[in-house]
Structures are given as structure tokens and as C-alpha cells.
């Protein structure tokens, strides 16, 4: 981890409230692992703290961030221009753990809304640059409010993933949430072949996912499930203790112990 001023290459609007910001830094691109984030100083005036943003994609020396406009910080970032320097600290966080996984197992990615951001980089790593690409079935579940908000489906397809969609209004794919879609799939499996899940999205999604796994998988404890968490942060490097979340082992820091946690270790908020 290092503080750097990196060059903004491109800012591309993908949807009215979603944009792709690409920065160039060979060093950053080489170090970055899926699930890690950059702690971004959006600009000098509008905000005080940095904003933690997941690494969305890597292309050679470039890293892209997929950003949803949420407030002052992300709006300020959208106003930046190519050629300008962006101050970032990173890559930060633990990232997804890619331990050996048996052939024939199923890899399932579950994205809720903007939670798709880190999963594209993960899909890149799972299929492209891996020494031995995984051979089993690969499914990407993408959830959004409406058809127009479904993100990155072609990126997953291009990497050999079967894409399934869920929209709240039913305008694309299954009507309902991405977890209901996951429930359909888990219920249809009915066997105990190896399954690993990587999920990112709103926090409540994780606990509904855990309930689904416990209910529908024959051996729930053998399902490897890693989830990438979001939390307001201070320093991003583990010193301020602001981004704590409750786990079975007490509070953990999203910035340093996470942002990726095993689903089994999380504790629901309000139960701490």
C-alpha cells in the first residue's frame, strides 16, 4: 500500500448514475487482487475523507473503478477530467481468497446492484490470468431494480459465465431479488457437489443468502462463501477503527480484516 497520484485516463458514463473511472498505474495494476479497493481522495474541496472504491477491472497498466453516484464524494469524482491526477492509497484490504477448488465444482457470483463492481475483476482472475482456469460450472447472478440497471452481463458472459438476472420490477430475468434467484438455483441443485460463492451487495443480502444456504444446501458448512462488505471508512488502513462490523470473533475492521469476509463469520447488525 502506498499513497500515489495516478493519472485519470477515462471517465465513462454507463448509466445516469453509474460511471467507470479508469486510472493508469502499472505498479497498482500489478499489485491489485480481486476484492481489494482503492481509497480515493475525490478532490480537495468537496470532501474531507477518502472514499473506498472496489477495483472493478484491470487492463494491463490500467485499473477501473465502477462507481455509483451516491453523494457529494462520488459526484465530485464524476466531475474530474481525464489527464488530471487522482490521489489514491492502495491497493487495500484482503481481497477474495482463491484457494484450490475441485474440478467439477460450481462457482457462483452473486451481485446486488453496484455490488457487481469487484466481481468482474474476480471473474477476470478466475478465468483469464489464472495458471489453471477453473473447469467447473460458472454462474453469475446479477440483481438490480430494473432492466436498465443490470450491469456488466456481457463481461461475465465473455468469460464463460452463465448469466442469470433478477429485477425487482421483473423487467429482466426473474422478478424479485437476486437472493430469490439464488434460492431457485440452490433448491434445484439438490446434491452436495462442491460449491463456492462470491457475493457483493447490500448487507441484508448476505444474511438472506446465509439463510438460503442453511436451508437449501445439504451440507451448508461446506459451501465456501466469501462476501465483500461495504462500510463508511476513516483511514482505510486499520488505524482509526471506524469501519468496524460485528463478527463471531468480535468487531473486525472492514478496511484491514476485510472487505472480504467468510459469510459464516458475520453477525447480523443489532445482534452484537
Amino acid at each position, binding site marked *: *500500500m502506498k499513497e500515489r497520484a495516478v493519472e485519470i485516463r477515462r471517465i465513462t458514463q454507463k448509466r445516469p448514475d453509474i460511471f467507470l473511472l479508469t486510472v493508469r498505474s502499472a505498479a497498482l495494476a500489478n499489485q491489485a487482487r480481486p476484492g481489494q479497493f482503492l481509497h480515493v481522495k475525490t478532490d480537495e474541496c468537496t470532501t474531507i475523507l477518502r472514499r473506498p472504491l472496489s477495483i472493478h477491472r484491470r487492463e494491463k497498466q490500467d485499473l477501473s473503478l465502477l462507481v455509483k453516484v451516491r453523494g457529494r464524494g462520488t459526484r465530485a469524482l464524476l466531475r474530474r477530467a481525464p489527464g488530471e491526477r487522482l490521489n489514491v492509497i492502495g491497493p487495500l484490504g484482503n481481497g477474495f481468497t482463491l484457494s484450490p477448488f475441485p474440478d467439477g465444482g460450481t462457482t457462483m457470483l452473486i451481485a446486488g446492484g453496484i455490488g457487481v463492481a469487484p466481481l468482474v475483476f474476480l471473474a477476470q482472475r478466475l478465468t483469464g490470468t489464472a495458471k489453471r482456469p477453473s473447469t467447473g460450472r460458472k454462474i453469475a447472478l446479477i440483481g438490480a431494480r430494473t432492466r436498465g440497471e443490470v450491469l456488466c452481463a456481457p463481461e461475465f458472459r465473455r468469460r464463460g459465465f452463465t448469466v442469470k438476472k433478477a429485477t425487482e420490477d421483473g423487467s429482466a430475468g426473474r422478478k424479485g431479488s437476486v437472493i430469490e434467484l439464488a434460492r431457485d438455483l440452490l433448491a434445484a441443485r439438490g446434491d452436495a457437489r462442491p460449491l463456492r460463492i462470491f457475493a457483493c451487495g447490500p448487507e441484508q443480502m448476505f444474511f438472506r443468502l446465509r439463510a438460503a444456504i442453511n436451508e437449501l444446501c445439504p451440507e451448508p458448512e461446506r459451501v465456501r462463501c466469501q462476501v465483500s462488505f461495504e462500510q463508511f471508512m476513516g483511514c482505510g*488502513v486499520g488505524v482509526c477503527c471506524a469501519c468496524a462490523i460485528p463478527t463471531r470473533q468480535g468487531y473486525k475492521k472492514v478496511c484491514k480484516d476485510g472487505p472480504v469476509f467468510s459469510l459464516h463469520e458475520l453477525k447480523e447488525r443489532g445482534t452484537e
Partner: protein
Amino acid sequence: MNRRGPSMNVRVGRCRYRSPVICASGTFGYGTELGALADYSAIGAVTTKTVTLDPREGNRPPRIFETAHGVLNSIGLENPGIERFCREIVPALRRMKIPFIVSIGGTTQSEYEELARILDRVAGVKAVELNLSCPNLRLKKMVSQEKVLTKKLVAGVRRRTTKTVIAKLTPEVTDITEIARAAEAGGADALSLVNTYYGMALNVETGVPRLGSVYGGYSGRAIKPLSLYRVWRVYQAVSIPVIGGGGIETADDAIEFFLAGASAVSLGTVNMVYPKCAAGIKKGLQAYLRRRGIPRIARLTGEGHERAKRVG
């Protein structure tokens, strides 16, 4: 002024610091974690995250929220307790040769006294800062909201250590000079001004407070004029040195605090954004002194008061 430029050494209480730029408690961890992200050479001392007798797990999340011009936090003194601090963190600090001040906190006077007694024997501790002002401990009152308590607690600690004793005060009082005088009377070697202000924010969509513990401490650029005013007032009221801070982001901000009466400055929220900020601020201070032909940073302390008299 010697050839190496203006002297940046300052004396605060019983020891000297190589730089007048100090990292405020809670914003720099224990000082050791940042590694290459920080520039330790510019830092006079790191004030550690507050240590308590027993470990504390901290407050319910969310613990931080940024508002338009400042930052709300409610960490709740998460820390591993004094025993692990002495066993694991102090050796690391000494190995890295980082000058450090230990911030201590507690819920009773005897806890502060015990902590001070333990730290008195720990080599490398430059000073003990009494956190008398944490807004995130749910006590009826903070110690530094009560002059009698402040004096008594400082005096109790004073009896148990030969180290420099710094009292860190809350700005949340009717008259901070009364509390400052009480700490001085109790035997404090120096004062640290100020801790955060009480504050809160609510989510207008859900109606829920943004912090898990409802309210917390407010810091950042918004509080700078408020903190500066308190440093100014306290400088007039006491004769012990003041470490001044609250919303400092630039060298100019720091200069204002020196002019108002600070002998050293503390960086808080800005550390979380720019871990190397102490270096830039120290450099900016040096450039300012050079430009004005002032040989030592200590000469700047309180200059604003002289100027104000002449104008008035």
C-alpha cells in the same frame, strides 16, 4: 538562524520534541501500523490511541459519518488494554524509534492513576496524555467538564508519575479557561486543546441516526475557528504550554494556532486522509519562519496576542 534553517525543536512540559507537529490521539493508531505511508521524521510525537486498563471492544457501528464540512465519529475507545499495549506495542514503537505520547482513559480516577503508575516505569514514553474528554464514553459528564474533578484527577495522576502530564480537554464547557486553570493547579505540565465537539446526523430517508451510538465527536475543518478561539483564551489564562489543534489541514492553519498561543500543534482528522501530512505542514512552517526571519518556531507562540494589543 543557523544554516540549517529555523529551529523546529519545542519543549512541552518536561521534554523536547524534534518537531512541533504532533499526531492527535485516535487518528494515527498506535503509530506503528502505517509504515511507509507515514513520514515519521516530520512528526514530533505520535499520541497513541487511548489505552484503558482493560481491553475495550468499542461502540456499535456505524462509527463514522462525514458531513458537509466535518467528520462525526463514535469509536468508543476500542483498544487492547494496557497490558497488551506494553507488551506488544511499546516495543514496536521503540524499535521504529517513533517518539510517542501515551493517551490514557478510564471511568474512575483510580483507573487513570493506575495507568499512570504503570506507564511511569515504561521506557520510551515521552508523556502521558489524560483523555479527560472522550465524547464516546457514556458517562454522565466528562471529567474535563468539571473543574473540581479535573484538578483532583490531574493531581492524583501527578503523584504517580514523573513523566510529563498533559491534560486533554473538551471544548464542550461554558468557560474552558476555568477547566484549564484547574488542570494547571492540579499539576499538569501541559494542556491539549481540543477534543471533538458533540455532534450528530440523521438519515432523512429512514429517520435513523447515522452513528450507531446516535451521537459522537465532531472534528475536521469545520471546527478550526472554534478550536482556535479556545486556544487563544486558554493561552491568556494559564502559564503552562498548550498543544493546539482542531481542524488543521495546512501549514497556514498550524501557524494560526501558534499565533494564538500553541507551543505545538496536533493533527487529527487530516491524518486519516493524508498520512504524510505532518511533513508538508512542518515544511510549510519552516518556509514561513524563514520568510519572516524568525529563528525558532517557539518564538511564534502567542505572537497574535502581542499584535492584537498593538492594534487594540
